[in-house]
């Protein structure tokens, strides 16, 4: 063993070397500098970037021993580096100011990489920045904001002036004091300094490390399981199998069909099924122990896709069969519809499984308490559901479990299901020690639910002038081994499969099928991403068939106020689709008067450009008759500050800011006076799941009404005390004016408590009732609308596709925080672009091929087009200040906008995503050859 002498953030260390240790592990585990993040451990994501002798390096593949004699700077060392005192570096400032920080997990890597760039090149242009940040991935993907932040920081560093704030983000058109204006995230500063703690950054005394033994076969029965060797390994504290499950054997979000562990004689349904779990003194011992567990299977034929799953005579994966749900939409009379059509088109589309690839892999920690309760620390999108699910399996009352939600390094729908929560609870309970279960990227890719792969057939009938009269769709959705949210997702795919259009006769049938692939569940877009690709491609084909302009065709058929959706819902308000279409169209034609005509590059005739256009809509909220409820507490404190609490999840999307602004607005205080607490089942009421773009709406409303109620209480108390009419009490700039008296909230607190009133309100908000599918009426309480145009460049020789520009208009009702909205929209476009061009989760006969990040490519900054965002605000009266969801709609039209643009450029129609450049090239050369 040798000694490693190194300097970290200006401090000298002398550490004994540990065989096999990487620099990242040394920094995180030994020096507790947890600002250095781990996203992949394969040199792919850049989250672990630190500076070694001034150069950015991936510390996850850097042997610690090599750091001997080197000078290391981590994110924690940046703030004090430029000034004597702890002051943010201009880069940190700029990242905060420009809204470049979303979930924050990638941010340390981004900032350090940018820091090295600015040292070398104090005046970088956009190309320099992109080149430098090429492999520093941000899945929240606010790449344009990151770029702007770096430009602003560079300027500040050159001039010595403070960082310039962004100037290009307009306020909401709906005028309010606080909401509708750009505000910074309350947690942004800790995210740029590295102080922000995510689950894996926590360490408890005596903590054990866990690892699950995965089946690694797609289908079969577990015949034998030998854990004796693992148990005997020194350092192993517990090895548990299905036999050790205390109560309920299964978990699940809607249907409890997912075994906590598969027992002897039971069925393995996908490679990620857990067979045993181990807790050990170190991660290495836990891994070694898992390697010693021996399993034998009786292998079964593998169901590889949903179409096969529905065939007669194939093995049935679940007791009730392979069909999770047949989902039907019926409107009008199809025969009459098609009979009245002048043209009928029919095509079939395929979309692949995709992975959320949040940069932070899953992590759970179970901590047993002396009183017998159990705390679960986890980044989860549904903390209260986690509590229920853990309690069911443990056989405990729910209150015995406390879920303490942690900051999340991205979720996007992928952190709704149980991953390690139950396993750590079981292990912590048996060992009576804290237990951490951290997935590596490999396990994350194998195990958690994905986006559904689909096959979608669309048959469309239209009049000569382009009016659509009938639309019939048939969808197959691959929900994989377990239901997760499969039924809900595919329902959304189905109800939205006719596009945001007003059509008299609609019929849709969807078969959500179980297969032996990894489960599929929620993923930003929730099924609509898939069906929008199909229907929007059809719209362009229809435009060509009837000879109508692509935009005009959409305008003519667009849903509008008064339309009836295909599920029979009358849209009474807040339908901004036409405005979205008009504004994107106008913006696009400003760049290119004939946007859909191919334009050949004058320097290189192989390069052809064109625009593509697509529209979409997406429900806000759970809908379909499910009660959509969120609770929030608002409390006034002695010092005159407020706290708002709800166990809704902040995954980087910006809910915390929305809650803060809402309460600040209602109480007429500065946002800084409002603290937010989320995701703790002991301390905050249930905010419901963070899914279906619902949180701004429901928890926004809950916070708002809680604050309003508190304000009413204050008003009543003050009116009585000063004997004035309630209308004479005004709230302004943090002061309560009562008939000549001006009181601060600290004084109000005193007044209220003096008469025994607790200035604290809990409000349970229930969104407007919805109806189940098939019963007509309002299936959803709000819809968001989005339109995008994409300009692409296609290389006719190689088939390569580059997206140059995207214009994105989104009707969000009201922009509560325009700065946060900007990040959502940029990220939405990038996620859509990845969905279209780079991402495909490949499963070969049940075995995962894309089991490393290196094989599953998510878009980096180099692929970022110029993104123009247009905010359309048709308010919905039930929403907070008129707001409805935005998280998903901004991602949905991107794929068809790009594929339509490809067709417009080179005449190759994409029926299957992701776009295969080879297929484009082949079609072009074959066309050339037959000429």
């Amino acid at each position, binding site marked *: 063993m040798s000694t490693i002498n190194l300097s970290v953030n200006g401090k000298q260390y002398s550490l004994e070397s540990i065989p096999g240790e990487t620099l990242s592990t040394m920094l995180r585990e030994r020096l507790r500098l947890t600002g250095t993040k781990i996203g992949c451990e394969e040199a792919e994501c850049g989250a672990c970037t630190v500076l070694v002798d001034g*150069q950015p390096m991936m510390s996850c593949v850097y042997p610690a021993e090599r750091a001997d004699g080197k000078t290391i700077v981590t994110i924690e060392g940046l703030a004090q580096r430029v000034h004597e005192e702890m002051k943010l570096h201009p880069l940190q400032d700029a990242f905060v100011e420009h809204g470049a920080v979303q979930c924050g997990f990638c941010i340390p890597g981004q900032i350090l990489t940018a820091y*090295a760039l600015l040292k070398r090149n104090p005046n970088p242009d956009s190309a320099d920045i992109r080149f430098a940040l090429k492999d520093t991935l941000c899945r929240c993907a606010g790449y344009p904001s990151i770029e702007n932040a770096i430009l602003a920081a560079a300027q500040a560093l050159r001039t010595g002036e403070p960082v310039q704030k962004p100037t290009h983000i307009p306020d909401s058109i709906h005028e309010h004091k606080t909401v509708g204006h750009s505000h910074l995230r309350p947690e942004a500063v800790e995210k740029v300094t590295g102080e922000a703690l995510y689950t894996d950054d926590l360490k408890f005394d005596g903590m054990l490390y866990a690892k699950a033994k995965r089946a690694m076969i797609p289908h079969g029965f577990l015949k034998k399981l030998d854990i004796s060797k693992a148990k005997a390994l020194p350092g192993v504290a517990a090895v548990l199998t299905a036999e050790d499950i205390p109560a309920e054997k299964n978990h699940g979000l809607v249907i409890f069909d997912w075994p906590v562990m598969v027992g002897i004689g039971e069925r393995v349904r996908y490679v990620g099924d857990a067979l045993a779990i181990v807790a050990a003194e170190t991660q290495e011992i836990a891994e070694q122990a898992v390697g010693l567990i021996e399993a034998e299977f009786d292998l079964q034929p593998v169901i590889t896709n949903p179409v096969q799953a529905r065939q007669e005579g194939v093995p049935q994966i679940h007791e009730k069969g392979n069909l999770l749900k047949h989902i039907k939409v019926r409107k009008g009379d199809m025969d009459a519809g098609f009979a009245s059509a002048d043209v009928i088109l029919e095509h079939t589309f395929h979309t692949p499984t995709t992975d959320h690839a949040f940069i932070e892999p899953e992590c759970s920690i179970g901590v047993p308490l002396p009183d017998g309760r159990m705390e679960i620390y986890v980044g989860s999108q549904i903390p209260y559901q986690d509590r229920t699910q853990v309690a069911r399996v443990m056989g405990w009352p729910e209150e015995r479990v406390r879920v303490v939600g942690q900051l999340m390094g991205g979720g996007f729908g992928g952190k709704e299901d149980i991953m390690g929560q139950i396993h750590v609870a079981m292990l912590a309970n048996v060992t009576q020690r804290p237990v951490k279960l951290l997935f590596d990227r490999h396990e994350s890719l194998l195990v958690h639910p994905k986006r559904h792969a689909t096959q979608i057939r669309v048959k469309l009938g239209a009049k000569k002038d382009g009016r659509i009269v009938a639309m019939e769709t048939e969808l197959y959705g691959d929900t994989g081994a377990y239901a997760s949210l499969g039924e809900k997702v595919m329902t959304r795919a189905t109800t939205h499969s006719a596009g945001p259009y007003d059509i008299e006769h609609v019929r849709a049938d969807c078969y959500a099928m179980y297969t032996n692939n990894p489960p599929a569940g929620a993923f930003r877009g929730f099924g609509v991403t898939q069906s929008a690709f199909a229907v929007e491609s059809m719209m362009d084909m229809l435009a060509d068939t009837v000879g109508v302009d692509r935009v005009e065709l959409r305008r003519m058929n667009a849903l509008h106020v008064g339309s009836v959706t295909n599920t029979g819902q009358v849209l009474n308000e807040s339908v901004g689709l036409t405005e979205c279409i008009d504004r994107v169209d106008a913006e696009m034609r400003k760049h290119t008067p004939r946007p859909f005509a191919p334009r050949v590059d004058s320097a290189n005739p192989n390069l052809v450009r064109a625009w593509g256009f697509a529209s979409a809509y997406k429900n806000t909220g759970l809908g379909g008759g499910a009660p959509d409820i969120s609770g929030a507490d608002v409390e006034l404190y002695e010092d005159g500050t407020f706290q708002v609490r709800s166990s809704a999840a902040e995954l980087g999307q910006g809910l915390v800011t929305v809650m803060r602004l809402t309460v600040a607005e209602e109480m007429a205080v500065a946002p800084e006076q409002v603290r937010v607490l989320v995701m703790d089942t002991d301390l905050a009421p249930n905010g419901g799941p963070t899914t279906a773009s619902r949180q701004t709406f429901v928890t926004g409303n809950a916070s708002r009404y809680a604050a309003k109620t508190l304000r009413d209480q204050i008003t009543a108390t003050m009116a009585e005390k000063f004997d004035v009419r309630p209308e004479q009490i005004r709230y302004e700039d943090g002061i309560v004016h009562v008939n000549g008296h001006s009181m601060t909230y600290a004084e109000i607190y005193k007044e209220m408590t003096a008469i025994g009133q607790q200035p604290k309100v809990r409000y349970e908000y229930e969104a407007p009732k919805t109806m189940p599918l098939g019963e007509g009426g309002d299936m959803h309480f709000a819809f968001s609308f989005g339109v995008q145009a994409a300009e692409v460049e296609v290389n006719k020789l190689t088939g390569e596709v580059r997206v140059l520009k995207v214009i994105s208009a989104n009707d969000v009702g009201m922009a509560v925080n325009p700065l946060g909205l900007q990040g959502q929209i940029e990220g939405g476009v990038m996620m859509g672009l990845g969905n279209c061009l780079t991402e495909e989760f490949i499963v070969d006969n049940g075995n995962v091929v894309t089991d490393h990040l290196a094989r599953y490519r998510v878009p980096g900054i180099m692929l970022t087009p110029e993104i123009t965002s247009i905010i359309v605000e048709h308010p919905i009266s039930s929403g907070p200040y008129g707001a409805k969801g935005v998280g998903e709609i901004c991602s949905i039209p991107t794929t068809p906008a790009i594929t339509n643009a490809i067709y417009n450029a080179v005449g190759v129609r994409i029926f299957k995503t992701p776009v295969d450049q080879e297929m484009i090239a082949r079609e072009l050369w074959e066309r050339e050859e037959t000429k």
Partner: protein
Amino acid sequence: MNLWQEYKSPTSVAEAVQDLASAAGPALPIAGGTDLMLDLRQGNHPPVHTLIDLTFIPEMSALELRGDELYVGAAVPVNQVALDPLVGTHAQALTEAANLIAGPQVRNTATLGGNVAHALPAADGTIALTALDAVAEVAGAAGRRRMPFTSLFLGPGKSAIDKTKEIIVGFYLPIARPHQASCFKRIMRPQGVALPILNCAVWLERDGDLVRDIHIAVGPGGATPFRATEAEAFLRGQSFNDETFAHALDCLLDQAKFRTSARRASADYRRHIVGGLLKDVLDTAWKRAE
């Protein structure tokens, strides 16, 4: 379970070779580790007991002119190769390839030695060095020897160097004389691993409108880094025009063994696009050599 048991940081080539020989278990050199660490971690590699770090050896981190050759140490980080003006002057194809390998953080540790020793037929640094007709200096227990570049490879992922005993010390490149130039370009696909589906490097010397000499490397044009020797032989002494290019391309297509890599590119696709890439690279190099 540890990725390695022992870590050595020798400061000379002799010491490194000695460390390899005397290690208590299987030993391997590690340069950037951007291939090796991943292979070890993902279990794609037999376990290694001792890692011999090559980055503390001054000779292997040197980049300098030596006589009429440019010497690039095998452990020089790729990023440094990309930025070095000497490389820019004498081996522009290498500058271009080095600039395209991975991202900046990886480039700050990845090396040409590792790129070459990993022996993939389409590694970017490797293909540039192939066209530049590099010579490798290899050190082992028996001393040092110079090896012509293409003799370093046995097959995909199979190096002619016995990495448990030998080390690539560095590469020698001929310095550029007037009317000599080179160029490197590649074609990627946005899905899957970050290796090119096709890359191409050309070095050439012009004599007015005639091709005096030329080297063409294409990856993956075979199991090892491919030199289009037939096309080169045809072009030598020819004037450079559409007709000669077309014939050269035919030669290349006859000689190369393009294969289908699952989910990346079919042989057919590679055959169809190689002409465009070669033309592009040749044209650029031709102009540069004016």
